[in-house]
């Protein structure tokens, strides 16, 4: 029993982090219809940025702050260089552009850090609740994921700037006509999306070792989570992440762990067949 509960709890905690990773993706998709193929690379970059600040002597949690700032700036730069020009071009061009960005990030990352694993070695405390062991790092990252998500939700649905982001998402030209500087908003959105991806990368780096290629797995999970939650729907993405985590956690005790992925993806495709725009409704 404890074993099952432990598994489910673990799943929930890690699911929140998947959710956070997915939010950056879903935001960028929702607002600009860009399937960001550099998402994984950016997550990995977040891991390495944290590593750099950590190496410079900052506590990992303190280092999240400069990582976030860097992430935002990096996102804006990527937008200006690679995405801005093609965003109103033929659909799917953004796929290519972000794929190219991904290649560049991974190429540079490989040159700098090779593809060998790194990890953030800091003191984590282990807590024990009735036989369930959990580390402080997992708790912190889960809580951070929730906070960031609700912060973003508040931003999007309650602030004027946030609503403007959604307006631009809906109809760029009309937004322009209403006085909304759409290019600026798009750059900000890409910045925020990138920042969230980097933050999730940084949090993951406090849990697991990583290489410059590690982003791939989380990119995949992000795709799944954001689709489950409904593309373009940030809270949906968080729940999508939780669902993923819970699936992983709750089937593990009963079957071979290597089957969890099969089950995960089958459930994913299955859910889509019944809810073609995700469980919580998203953009078409």
């Amino acid at each position, binding site marked *: 029993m404890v074993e099952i509960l432990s598994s489910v709890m673990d799943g929930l905690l890690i699911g929140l982090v998947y959710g956070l990773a997915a939010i950056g993706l879903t935001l960028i998709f929702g607002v600009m219809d860009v399937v960001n193929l550099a998402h994984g690379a950016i997550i990995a970059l977040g891991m390495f940025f944290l590593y750099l600040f950590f190496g410079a002597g900052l506590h990992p949690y303190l280092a999240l702050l400069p990582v976030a700032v860097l992430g935002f700036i990096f996102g804006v730069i990527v937008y200006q260089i690679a995405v801005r020009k*093609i965003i109103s071009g033929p659909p799917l061009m953004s796929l290519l552009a972000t794929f*190219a960005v991904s290649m560049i990030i991974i*190429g540079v990352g490989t*040159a700098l850090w090779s593809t060998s694993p790194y990890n953030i070695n800091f003191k984590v405390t282990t807590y024990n609740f009735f036989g369930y062991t959990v580390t402080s790092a997992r708790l912190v990252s889960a809580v951070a994921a929730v906070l960031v998500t609700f912060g973003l939700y508040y931003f999007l649905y309650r602030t004027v700037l946030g609503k403007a982001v959604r307006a631009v998402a809906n109809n760029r030209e009309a937004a322009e006509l209403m006085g909304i500087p759409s290019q600026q908003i798009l750059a900000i959105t890409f910045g925020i999306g990138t920042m969230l991806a980097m933050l999730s990368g940084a949090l993951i780096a406090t849990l697991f070792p990583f290489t410059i290629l590690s982003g791939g797995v989380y990119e995949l999970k992000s795709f799944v989570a954001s689709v489950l939650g409904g593309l373009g729907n940030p809270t949906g993405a968080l729940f999508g992440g939780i669902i993923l985590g819970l699936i992983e956690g709750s089937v593990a005790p009963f079957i071979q762990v290597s089957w969890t992925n099969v089950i995960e993806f089958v459930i994913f495709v299955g859910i*889509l067949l019944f809810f*073609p725009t995700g469980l919580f409704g998203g953009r078409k």
Partner: protein
Amino acid sequence: MKALKSPFFWLILALTALFAFYPRLGNNITLRETLVLSAVYIILASNLNLMIGYTGYVNFGSIVFFGLGGYFTLWLVGAHGWNVYAAVLFAGFITSLLAMALGFGILRLRGAYFALATIGVNEAVKDFVSNFDTWGGSEGIFLPFTTYKAMGGAGKALWTVYLLIILVMGISLLLSWYVKRSKFGLGLFAIREDEDAAIVLGVKAPKYKALIYSLSAFLPAVAGGLYFFKNGSVVPEEAFNLHLSIESIVMVMLGGQGTVSGPAVGAFLYERLRGLLLTTPSLSNFHLVIAGVLLLLIILFAPGGLMGWLYKKWPRIREVLE
């Protein structure tokens, strides 16, 4: 036959013949191995284009067909002693059938949902195969060397397989070309432009989509069978390599989606570019970066893909090539 009057039809035949005989002239193995990779990429990109370019459905997981083709083939050859010709054909048909069944389900999804669902399919199949002991699970299937001996030795077998792959490449191009000019193709284009409008105009969208999905699975599956037969083994990571799926999309877009020759040109150039960067010692440390930057430049300055750019510049070319 009207086809015989089209210059493009002859162009495809000539190109295929060139691919087939060029390396033979000098018995040049390196060239053959390079071209075989190009040909496989051309097959993947061309068939993917049937979905992306013609129908407007972005299949992110197209590689699943390639992988299944490889698995069916090696399983039939290895465990059941089939000859490779029969095995690849069977692999093609069964994969097409599976695609058809799957298509009726997931093709109800639109846009990015479809795209991401196909990733799900690919990953689900990959993870399933990794656990499927009949197919060797994560260890995959390895062919005994005697299989090649039965085909007159590895050297001969590899040449034969090469020619077959080139043949499949030629058929892929012809298929693209033929579909584009058919009523079926017209229906697909209508779906691409506006599926709701197409349905109201009488296009049986669900049937058409499932058909093209299934069709776009056939030749990649055959190619997968041949390719992995040539490799002598198939393991899940290589067979269902999502990255290759995404690269295939890049090739299609690079060359120009929706055109007949674009994906092939894109695939060829992409492979050559990557290959060149890899084997040039001074560049090889930065090959990813260089490839990325080049790709980005092309996207930013020739957004319709290379063929799109050419057609715009010299519209006459379009008449010949499409």
